[in-house]
């Protein structure tokens, strides 16, 4: 062996190796993506190289291959899963292919350190087999030269091709230069394909108006499109390979910072679920807020979570319009309330004789006017509630609550209405665990659904309420035998102002807000509401279902949602640290 190598020309074929390395380096510098994104390229590299290394072993001493493989695997700082090892060992000739694949799934740091070990050991093996210190020294020198720029993929090429190339010089026909060139061509064409695909994808992603950012599972930015960078006011250099959560911050609508663990990208990485959020803003580089709707989606490579992609859109205008609309409803409602309230009192006073005696038939007219007045006030109140829901200003005060008791209280409330229509209310409830929920709002929800069921029941019908529990939720079913919901109108049942045609003819005075409110509340708790209709053969009957988690969601942005009153509380800054004494009479 020694003598063979002595005949080797001083510089055997460094150009070939260099060319290959250069190709690899170019590929890497162009791609600007992590190992994960490069895995197709790595696969091609290692496929070609593995055949070379296998042949090297065949040529040297086939019986040693298995032993070397074992030693190599044992030396790796990275623990190789048994199934990967057995896959390597059971091939007709031991192959390193599965090993490369494992390594490409590691973090770049881990992969690199593993490759360094691999390389060192490879040199040892060469030395052992070839007893050729010059070769080893040369390889070592080249290795040290390239070490600073070494990336895992490059190292594969380096450590495999270079010795293979040298050996080839000696053995001529066994592994010709042609064969290496073929590998090189394959690499080039693969590189071109990867680059073409990359250019196409980037052009595509840059041309869209939505911001797109991809982060690795180490939370580092591996891609950002032009829209994303423009919206955030950052350059590619600001973002690339930086930790996303360190570079870009989120704030709530009130400008409070959002903790990392509450951020959609983080939650998506953690839960491997798609997370959409509509009420947060980016804090731009110039410290202004960019209201955005954003969706984080995890992605998976080699069956392992590899990162997440965030797609976001500037919703400044939408939020403005939405805010103005809500503000308008809110102001208009308050303006309406003043005359309505004044009208109410005057009518009441008129009816009670504060302005003198009235003719008998005037009483009925006053009563009618009052009932219209009160209905309008209720409508205005509902409008106000809706505008609060839309602004996310509904206060939520969870307390330990027995759902069964809330149902009982609601039934008591609805009872007069039911009696008037001779509707039977029946309740079957399982023994109920205590849940933590805003009892007042739960009652509002139940009242809406149960009174609907009564309202749209025929005289003498019945409404059945059923409460069931499973491991993590409570389900309340409210079933009536009423008119049912026409199929063509079912899709809009939970929208604002919805009233089914057949309902309007029977009960003309509803506001069409009830179920919208129900849905808003229940979904804020992380629950679900749905219905089936008809439930009876003759197109009658409706069942509404409420499913409430036993541990209701803490609404995102609790500080902002909790206390609508708190906003005006800022005016008495002093009395918050030194609260005003409670002067209310203890007896009231």
């Amino acid at each position, binding site marked *: 062996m020694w003598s063979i190598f002595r005949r080797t020309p001083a510089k055997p074929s460094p150009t070939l190796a260099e060319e290959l390395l250069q190709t690899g380096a170019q590929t890497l510098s162009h791609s600007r993506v992590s190992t994960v994104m490069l895995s197709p390229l790595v696969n091609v590299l290692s496929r070609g190289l593995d055949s070379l290394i296998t042949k090297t072993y065949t040529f040297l001493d086939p019986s040693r291959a298995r032993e070397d493989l074992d030693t190599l695997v044992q030396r790796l700082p990275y623990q190789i899963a048994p199934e990967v090892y057995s896959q390597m060992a059971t091939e007709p000739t031991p192959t390193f292919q599965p090993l490369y694949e494992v390594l490409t799934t590691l973090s770049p740091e881990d992969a690199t350190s593993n490759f360094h070990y691999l390389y060192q050991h490879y040199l040892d093996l060469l030395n052992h087999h070839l007893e050729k210190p010059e070769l080893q020294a040369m390889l070592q020198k080249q290795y040290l030269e390239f070490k600073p720029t070494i990336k895992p993929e490059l190292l594969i090429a380096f450590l495999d091709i270079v010795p293979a190339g040298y050996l080839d010089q000696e053995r001529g026909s066994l592994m010709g230069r042609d064969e290496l060139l073929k590998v090189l061509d394959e690499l080039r064409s693969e590189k071109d394909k990867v680059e073409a695909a990359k250019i196409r994808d980037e052009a595509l992603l840059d041309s869209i108006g939505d911001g797109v950012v991809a982060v690795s599972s180490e939370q580092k930015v591996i891609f950002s499109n032009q829209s994303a960078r423009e919206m955030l006011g950052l350059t590619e250099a600001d973002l690339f390979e930086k930790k996303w959560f360190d570079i870009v911050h989120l704030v709530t609508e009130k400008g409070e910072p959002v903790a990392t663990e509450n951020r959609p990208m983080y939650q998506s990485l953690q839960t491997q679920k798609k997370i959409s959020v509509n009420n947060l803003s980016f804090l731009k580089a110039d410290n202004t807020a960019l209201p955005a709707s954003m969706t984080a989606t995890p992605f998976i490579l080699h069956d392992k979570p590899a990162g997440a992609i965030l797609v976001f859109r500037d919703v400044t205008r939408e939020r403005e319009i939405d805010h103005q609309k809500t*503000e308008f409803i*809110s*102001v208009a409602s*308050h303006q309406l*309330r*003043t005359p*309505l*309230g*004044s009208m*109410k*009192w*005057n009518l*009441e*006073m008129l009816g*009670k004789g*504060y*302005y003198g005696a009235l003719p008998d038939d005037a009483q009925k007219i006053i009563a009618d006017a009052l009932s219209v007045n009160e209905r309008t*006030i209720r409508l*205005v*109140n509902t409008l*106000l509630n809706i505008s609060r829901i839309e602004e996310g200003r509904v206060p939520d005060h969870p307390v330990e609550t027995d759902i069964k008791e809330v149902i009982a209280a609601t039934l008591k409330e609805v009872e007069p209405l039911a009696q008037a229509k001779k509707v039977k209310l029946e309740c079957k409830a399982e023994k109920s665990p205590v849940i933590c929920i805003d009892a007042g709002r739960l009652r509002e929800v139940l009242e809406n659904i149960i009174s609907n069921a009564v309202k749209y029941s025929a005289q003498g019908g019945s409404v059945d309420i059923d409460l069931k529990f499973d491991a993590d939720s409570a389900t309340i079913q409210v079933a009536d035998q009423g008119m049912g919901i026409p199929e063509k109108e079912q899709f809009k049942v939970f929208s604002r102002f919805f009233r089914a045609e057949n309902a309007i003819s029977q009960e003309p005075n509803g506001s069409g807000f009830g179920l919208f409110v129900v849905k808003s509340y229940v979904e804020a708790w992380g629950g679900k509401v749905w219905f089936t209709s008809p439930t009876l053969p003759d197109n009658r009957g409706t069942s509404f279902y409420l499913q409430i988690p036993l541990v209701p969601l803490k609404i995102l942005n609790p500080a902002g949602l909790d*206390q*609508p*009153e708190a*906003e*005006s*509380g*800022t*005016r*008495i800054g002093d*009395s918050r640290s*030194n*609260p*005003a*004494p*409670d*002067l*209310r*009479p203890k*007896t*009231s």
Partner: protein
Amino acid sequence: MIDTAQIHKILLMEDDEQLQQSYHRLFTTEGYQIFQAFTGEQGLQIAKQEKPDIILLDIMLKGGINGFDVLEQLKKDRDLFNIPVLMLTNLDSERKLALSIGAVDYLVKANTSIDILLEKVKNYIGQSLTTFAEDTSQFGETAATPTPQPLPEKSPLTL
């Protein structure tokens, strides 16, 4: 308790003239003596002069100060702090704040019938508020004649 021989005084702070007329009719018919103010400044002045038995206070007022400012001034005044103040307004989001400053109750006009209003007024009149002495720290040592507090800055109201 309520001395039936005495005519009770009600101070109404409300910027709506029509409503003031209705109040007037309502409460005079019920045998109360009525004082009416359209601005907070006017209301505070009447309160000092007349020492009413109860004050009905709107949040939105004419003039430079709103109902919360008035309420704070009343609660800081040794002579006036124990007059029960019943908030009567159409804003329904300020209940907590009003109660924390010391209102006895908070009624949304459009959601309150006159029967309830009359009943509340009757109940709150004459209820003695004696807890002032328990917390004089905020007024310093000049217990007898409190120094006038600067008016707190007016803040925008939340609807």
